[in-house]
């Protein structure tokens, strides 16, 4: 089985409102899968359906070859965007309770919690109440509660919000390590730089529809504009630029080089290849900079959403 999770033709209606419109997403085993989309696109609805918090009106979900059923909750870990724990309950008791709800026995839960509490160096908090902890501390407990039952599928909704950069780094490292140990991770976020950093594949949901999905590298290729950043050391920059315009589309540059070179963004036109551009440049001067502009996740996000609307 290549895919851990197959979401097939999911429709979810709230009254007359369609929160999800025939959405299908396939998530391969052992990857970090970015679930992206603007606010209100339907991400949370989809995540809730995967968690069996709500049921779809139609469509099917297959987890590791089996149709999603109540006993699968033990194989899923979920960190919701809006975090929360019982404020007046002690950290340890609370974690034990939640672990047992996920199907761990009490002794097993204690063992796992001990491991994680030591790993995060928070054993001293065991008997503290959540209301006595800072927000960042509570977030760590929350993270442990999400992963302690070794789920096959982990769903993180904005996992870095509320963490300072150091702890965010720590959590990112943990998430990637969990992936390397075999877990599959759904990662929902608005922070595109963390998408670049973490995700192997992404899906983009907008207005209840999936508008894009696939490997991040493939999508980037799909969104490539065949534009190159070019830096050329030449005696006659004006002349070179004018000749370039005859065979390529030329835009003003948006980057700086160390010396006084001619800098341009050049887009290949029909029938041109990057080699053509490069040989043109080498014949006119000394090439100092030649880089293809790779669309960032942010660019892709904005472009895809704008196209959809």
């Amino acid at each position, binding site marked *: 089985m290549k895919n851990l999770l197959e979401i097939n033709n999911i429709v979810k209606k709230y*009254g007359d409102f369609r929160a999800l419109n025939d959405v299908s997403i396939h998530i391969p085993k052992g990857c970090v899968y970015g679930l992206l989309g603007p606010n209100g696109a339907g991400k949370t609805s989809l995540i809730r359906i995967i968690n069996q918090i709500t*049921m779809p*009106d139609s469509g099917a979900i297959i987890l590791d070859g089996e149709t999603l059923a109540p006993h699968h*909750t033990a194989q899923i870990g*979920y960190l919701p965007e809006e975090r929360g724990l*019982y404020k007046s309950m002690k950290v340890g008791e609370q974690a034990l309770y939640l672990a047992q709800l996920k199907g761990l026995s009490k002794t097993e839960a204690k063992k796992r919690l001990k491991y994680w509490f030591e790993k995060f160096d928070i054993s001293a908090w065991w008997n503290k109440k959540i209301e006595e902890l800072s927000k960042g501390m509570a977030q760590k407990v929350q993270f442990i509660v999400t992963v302690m039952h070794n789920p096959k599928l982990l769903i993180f909704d904005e996992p870095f919000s509320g963490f300072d950069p150091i702890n965010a780094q720590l959590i990112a490292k943990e998430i990637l390590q969990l992936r390397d140990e075999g877990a599959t991770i759904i990662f929902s976020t608005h922070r595109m730089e963390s998408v670049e950093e973490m995700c192997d594949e992404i899906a983009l949901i907008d207005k209840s529809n999936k508008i894009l999905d696939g490997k991040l590298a493939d999508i980037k290729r799909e969104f490539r504009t065949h534009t190159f950043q070019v830096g050329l050391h030449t005696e006659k920059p004006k002349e070179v630029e004018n000749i370039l315009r005859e065979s390529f589309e030329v835009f003003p540059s948006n980057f700086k080089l160390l010396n006084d070179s001619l800098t341009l963004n050049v887009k290949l036109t029909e029938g041109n290849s990057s080699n053509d551009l490069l040989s043109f440049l080498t014949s006119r001067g000394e090439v100092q900079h030649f880089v293809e502009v790779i669309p960032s996740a942010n660019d892709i996000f904005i472009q895809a959403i704008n196209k959809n609307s």
Partner: protein
Amino acid sequence: MSKLKLIIQREFIAKVRNKSFIMMTFLSPLLMIGMGALIYFLMQKNDEKIKKIVYVDTSEMFSKEDFKDSKTIHFLDYTALGAEETKKKVEEGNYYGALIIPKQDSLELLAKSIEFYSKDSPGMSLINSLENKIESKIRNKKLNNFGIDLDKIKASKINTDIKMFNFSGEESSKLINGLKIGVGAIAGYLLMMFVLIYGTSVMRSVIEEKTSRIIEIIVSSVKPFQLMLGKILGNASAGLLQFFIWGIILFVISIVASSVFGVDVVEMQTAKVPAEQMEAVKAAAGGDKMQLVIQEILKLPILKMFILFIFYFLGGFMLYSSLFAAVGAAVDNETDTQQFMMPIMLPLILGVYVGFAMVINDPHGSIAVLFSHIPFTSPIVMLMRVPFGVSWYELIISMALLLVTFVFMVWLTAKIYRVGILMYGKKPTYKDLYKWLKYKG
């Protein structure tokens, strides 16, 4: 261990560990007894004050014999002083009031022209007792005028005391009727209080989970229905625990108190019985009140009542707390609950009113019977009726109706609960709640 059991356990422990639960459980029986003792003490104090009443009898019909001093009233004959002087004296001095009996030609006129002056307006019982005294005197006088022998009338007086039995051979009396009313009323009222207190506790707990946002984590592990049911059952167990502790505390205290104060406790208990019944007690038993009361209490179907209390508490609580849970799920904070609380409270209050107004007068009247079958009022009204003896088939119908209704209500409210716990922001309208019922899963 099943998830439901885990949830019940957590809810139970969260409730029982709460400081207010501990306070309520151990302090309120003491408080109740303290209040009872205080009322009894005040009643004693109130009675002890002797009222001095003077009378001016110009008709010369009455004598000291007719105005005998009682425990609380002391009569003084001021006829010699004259009406006007007496009134003045009473107004200035330390007297309660003045009864002025003028001289009249006929007894009929006399009966209409007697006056009573006092600084404060007198209580009804005082005026009644004065009127009784005067009436009987004038009646005797008239009987005398008709030539009827008073002694013969006295001799013809006879007291009837109908002994009441039901067909199962239990003997009943006015005293036991009073006790039945008392026990039934206390049970019904207690049940309402329990349902209300623990129902709102369920509601608060739902709101807490919602505002602390842990709800989404919990429902990713368990079904919302399981969580709601666990919450209700956990709180019900805490309620039962409190009820048992109260029972034990009251039992211990009454044993201790009766050995320390002896008779006082008996009088406190009889004080709860309506005045009419007290007379019956005194008349029937004289000094041996304690024994009689205990005997009569033992005649009540205590075990049956206890079991029924537990059943109706659980049934009524499940019914109402599922509604409370739905309300808690629908709103974001406690201040928004008002609008939805009213329709829940109404039937509860109605139950208590119907119980007090109808059951006490006629425990098997059609209204009492009707309300002891409607599931929203049956827990209260039926408990009030049970001491008077309710046939098994009526009980079974009422219990079955309650059972069916609460299962239905739990199912219905779970639908609202399930949607509501994940909704934040705008306070929903009833129309929204109706819409939620139709959402899938």
